[in-house]
């Protein structure tokens, strides 16, 4: 039988929001000498059901934490998308959205817009304060052991 498929498929030259954030987590670890890190976890189904827009196929939350302040984590934002990855829906922490003067709920149409938002979020005073506090707490923990 002849193939009914097209001759070939093209891999899209596009980075998923998950990949972009993962790369930024590595950057954060490098900049803080591994005192502070981030992690991405799947958004819990009960939250997905509550927050309009987080009902997409891929839905995650991004946290900042430190391996030395083991129980601590700060929920920076939740995000969700469908294939083909964009638009991505972001549900920001209210302190960050207040500082940026933007809505808590944002729809971003492409990779560039996501990168621009992440840059703004990572440069807020709020994020800077959290990272500084976590570095201080981590160093103080290490001095006590």
């Amino acid at each position, binding site marked *: 039988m002849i193939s009914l498929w097209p001759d070939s498929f093209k891999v899209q030259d596009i980075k998923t929001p998950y990949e972009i954030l993962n790369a930024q987590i590595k950057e954060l670890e490098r900049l803080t000498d591994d005192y502070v890190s981030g992690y991405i976890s799947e958004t*819990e*189904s*009960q*939250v997905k*059901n*509550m*927050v*309009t827009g987080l009902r997409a196929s891929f839905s995650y939350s991004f*946290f*900042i934490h430190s391996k030395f*302040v083991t*129980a*601590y*984590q*700060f*929920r920076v934002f939740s995000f969700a998308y469908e294939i083909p990855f964009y638009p991505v829906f972001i*549900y920001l*922490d*209210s*302190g*960050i959205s*207040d500082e940026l003067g933007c809505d*808590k709920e944002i729809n971003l149409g492409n990779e560039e817009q996501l990168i621009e938002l992440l840059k703004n979020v990572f440069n807020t005073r*709020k994020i800077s*304060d*959290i990272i500084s*506090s*976590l570095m201080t*707490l981590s160093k103080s923990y290490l001095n006590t052991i």
Partner: protein
Amino acid sequence: MKILFWNTGNKDVDDALIELAITENVDLLILAEYKNEEKDILGKFAKAGLNYFKVQQVGCKRIKILTKFNPNNIVHGPECDRFTLKIVKYPVIGEIIVGCVHFPSMLYRSENDLQAYAAFFKCDYEKFATETKVKKSFIIGDFNMNPFEKGMTSANGLHSIPCSKIVKTHNGLRKIDSRKHMMFYNPMWNLFGDNDEIPGTYYYQKGSYNEYYWSILDQVIISHDLIDNFDKNSLKILTSASNISFVNKNGKPELSDHLPITFKLKY
């Protein structure tokens, strides 16, 4: 063990706080919308012979915590702008998860938004409680919801109900569609009505058809394992401390737009 929460409404309430700390003998003081510097109030407490410490804030700047306990024994848990979770090591009772919340006002946000916060909180709380294996906990603060609203009662929200016996019968967990949801006892329902002449913690009249006038937005909810330590009779909405009144001549909140709540944990 006395705990007090107050949304101080960005007003200068330092004199009232000192009187409250003395008259109520508060061990853990949790404040929302507190506008003054913590180091200043700690200095004023010291002058009054009261020894309090500040619990270091990391990301949740809306809530300030002052305590008589050594803050080095406090474990920092999950948080976001609107809530923070800590583990406090109490003498005799042991480790307790203390959740402090200041959810957004329904004047500016939708009910859906509040339910989302309640759901975020509950997820982070359940994960924290499971990982740390700390079963005793209370959640206190300005929930900006009445005890009967969905975000407070729904299993995927705070899941707090007005009967401690039912929470005990369920062992603090209710299974719905194969997922277990932790439950809380909400004793604030006991404070509705005007039997004690204080119908709520917050008064608001918006001229709509459905009007409560008084709401109980400032609440504490108690986990299954802490119910036996919770002194029901100690739960109060406060309207004064010594000669400082928090209400006007009509009995409505004046010093701040919210009234403080306090309760005691017994050994």
